[in-house]
């Protein structure tokens, strides 16, 4: 019995291209991104300049970090729908506590709900085996409820955006958005964690075959709890960045980013069934979605039409991408 995969067989050009794409799944994504930018440039000549690039990066970064949360949870076969609420809570608490608290205290207070929600998610999914979709949706609703209660208590003191977050969210230095100072380390950390640490290995292993991981001595609940806490922390930090960008604290601040963050991870090639994917693809996925949004905005379509088109394009891109990359 010889190994089928290694049997020499004549390969057509189309198949070779497919093989190539399957081995380097980033390439079709980058090609798609370039095509979108070119279309944009054709529709509105001159729009692609330094300022546009900086702006695109600024809006893509919060999406990309939240999509990082989705990437990591999806690798284990899960999902984290509470990232929107967590980001909103951190942002809202930061903006209201900074008014009469020390910045460090305000920061710690802002990250507290993130840790708590992450812990509850992790224990719910890892120990009690609640489906991640339901678990994170539930904690998301609970978090929103608490935020509404909290809002009444601080209604008198008002809110302000700390200067530092303002600088981080919107500032540009030498043509580079300051948000990159946060994003580059975060991205490096996520990529490193996934590829070069024991924890990252376990995320893939648990998502691919939980039973095999168990037989190798992996305790599922530990991995899952740590994962959801990490995901929540990242979401909380994203919230702080995002409030610096949007500058208007509200109770649904980051909510519109949740589903695009899932879409960015899926477009980026992470399998929703677990075990497959990576963060670099997700970053490009977030960029693609951001450029796509710009593109649809300048078409000056009514909002409804834009959404319909956005949905169709996301579906089409994902389906096409999986067809290209899946080599079987």
């Amino acid at each position, binding site marked *: *019995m*010889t*190994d*089928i*995969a*290694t049997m020499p067989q004549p390969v057509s050009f189309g198949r070779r291209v497919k093989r190539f794409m399957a081995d380097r799944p980033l390439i079709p994504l980058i090609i798609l991104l370039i095509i979108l930018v070119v279309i944009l440039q054709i529709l509105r000549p001159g729009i692609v300049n330094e300022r546009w690039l900086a702006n695109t990066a600024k809006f893509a970064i919060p999406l990309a970090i939240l999509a990082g949360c989705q990437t990591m949870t999806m690798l284990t076969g899960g999902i984290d729908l509470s990232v929107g609420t967590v980001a909103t809570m951190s942002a809202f608490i930061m903006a209201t506590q900074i008014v009469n608290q020390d910045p460090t205290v305000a920061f710690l207070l802002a990250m507290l709900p993130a840790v708590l929600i992450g812990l509850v998610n992790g224990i719910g999914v890892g120990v009690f085996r609640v489906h991640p979709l339901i678990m994170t949706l539930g904690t998301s609703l609970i978090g929103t409820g608490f935020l509404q209660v909290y809002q009444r208590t601080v209604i008198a003191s008002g809110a302000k955006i700390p200067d530092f977050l303002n600088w981080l969210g919107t500032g540009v230095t030498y043509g580079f958005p300051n948000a990159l100072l946060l994003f580059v380390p975060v991205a490096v950390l996520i990529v*490193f964690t996934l590829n*070069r*640490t*024991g*924890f990252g*290995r*376990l995320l*893939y*292993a648990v998502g*691919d*075959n939980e*039973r*095999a*991981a*168990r*037989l*190798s*001595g*992996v*305790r599922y609940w*530990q991995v899952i709890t*740590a994962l959801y806490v990490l995901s929540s922390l990242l979401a909380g930090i994203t919230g702080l960045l995002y409030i610096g960008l949007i500058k208007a604290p509200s109770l649904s601040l980051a909510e519109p980013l949740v589903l695009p963050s899932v879409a960015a991870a899926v477009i980026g090639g992470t399998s929703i069934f677990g*075990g*497959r994917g990576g963060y670099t693809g997700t970053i490009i996925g977030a960029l693609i979605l951001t450029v796509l949004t710009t593109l649809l905005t300048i078409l000056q379509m009514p909002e409804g039409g834009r959404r319909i088109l956005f949905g169709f394009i996301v579906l089409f891109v994902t389906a096409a991408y999986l067809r290209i990359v899946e080599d079987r």
Partner: protein
Amino acid sequence: MTTNPLPQNPLLDATGVAKNYGAVAALRNASLSVLPGEVHALMGANGAGKSTLVKILTGAINADAGRILIRGQQLDVRSPAAARRAGLLPVYQEPSLIPDLDVLSNLRLTRTPVEPFRAWVRELGIPNLDIRDTARDIPLAILRVLDLARALAVEPDVLLLDEMTAALPANLAEKVLEVVRRQGDAGRSVIFISHRFVEISALCDRATVLRDGSTVGVVDIEPGVEERIVEMMLGTRIEKTRVGARTANDVAAASGGRPRLSVRNLQLGTKLNDVSFDLANGEVVGVFALEGQGQDELFAALAGSIRPTGGTIDVDGAPVKFSHPSDAIQAGIAYVPGDRTEALAMQRSVRENIALPFSAGLRKWGPIRMRREQVVVSGAIGRLQIDTRAQGEVQRLSGGNQQKVTIARWIAANARTILCFDPTRGIDVGTKQEIYKLLRELAGQGKSVLFYTSEMEEVQRVCDRVIVIFGGRVVDTFSVEEADEPALMRAAYGLPRGARADVGILADVRPASDAEAAS
């Protein structure tokens, strides 16, 4: 064989039945002929083709060749429903009631008449069943009896019972056997699949014996016939296989010191009963058993996957309690499951799969020392000669190479004890040889191996000793010199060692049941 010429025409007559799965022939030339009013045993060792034949008869799968006649009519059983219409009804080992429905709804689903069902349930020794109970809340043993009652209630011409008494407590098993016996007396036929000679002798009129997918004999059940049945199941393989030569080194390693693993009175529900044995350093102990005799549970308990309900496990003389596989791994005990899909992350690389246990502990979640890992992993890959041309994803590897990866993981982790559950199932001959050699080498290095196998010849190739499990008990222990195939086969069927036909269990049972029939 010695079939008495009986006047009746067979109720069910299957001849020349064959079934191939790809290149593997599950059935070559099976035949089975059941007379009206007969309880007919279907026997064969592991992999002889019993379950394939049963599935074909009940329409669960279709045969590639062969002819099935029911009451002389050629029949095309293409689906379970068709088999049912033809009067053939199976009761499988797995309970078939839908867990979330109550018993009554389950009956309606199969259009089973309720009153006869109730009568049979009472008959089978369950006086107070509430048919409004949800199936999920009913214990397994009762569910199996309900399955039987449900089959009896529709009065099938041929009832097909697969290991009907397995997992039943003695009192229920007795009732079941009694009812089955009366079915025969009432003129209906029963095909009775069992590994237990005691039941077969008490119950059956004739037996059909399968070996390697073919029917090798039909015998009347009479005192002393169990020896002939064992011979038939073994076929020509009775001559002793050569014991693999052990070097002086191996023998030296195996002797001396306290046992590496010492199991005493291990108990696990109804599956394991009072299992005790030792595993020394440098020793390969074989476990031989027919399917479902408790070997799965034994390995799971030793691997920390399930908790035993009683008994003790000592590692290096110190008692241990495993609540998770990681506890067993901590104690240096690694489990290689028979099913590769249970052990491998199929979409991940060979390297990641081998290195998986390294990252398992909380303290090892940090950065991986890639260079060192590379050295350890390639050492294990080299030792097992894994073909790494397709190492990007384990699922692209051949079955044999996948199996090697599951073992290489524990070579890399330097586990002191390896529990191998049928590691050579479904892999090519060359790889099998390599695995035998590897296991011997491990023993030579002072490691210990517990080796369950479903192929008797492997015992001779690999093991120093072999324990035989039957019905959740260790029924015998052989040194490799004694463990020839007839001895193993007899022990696996629960036959006492060295017993001859005239003192065989059939001799005790048959007169009793005859006397009963006469009164």
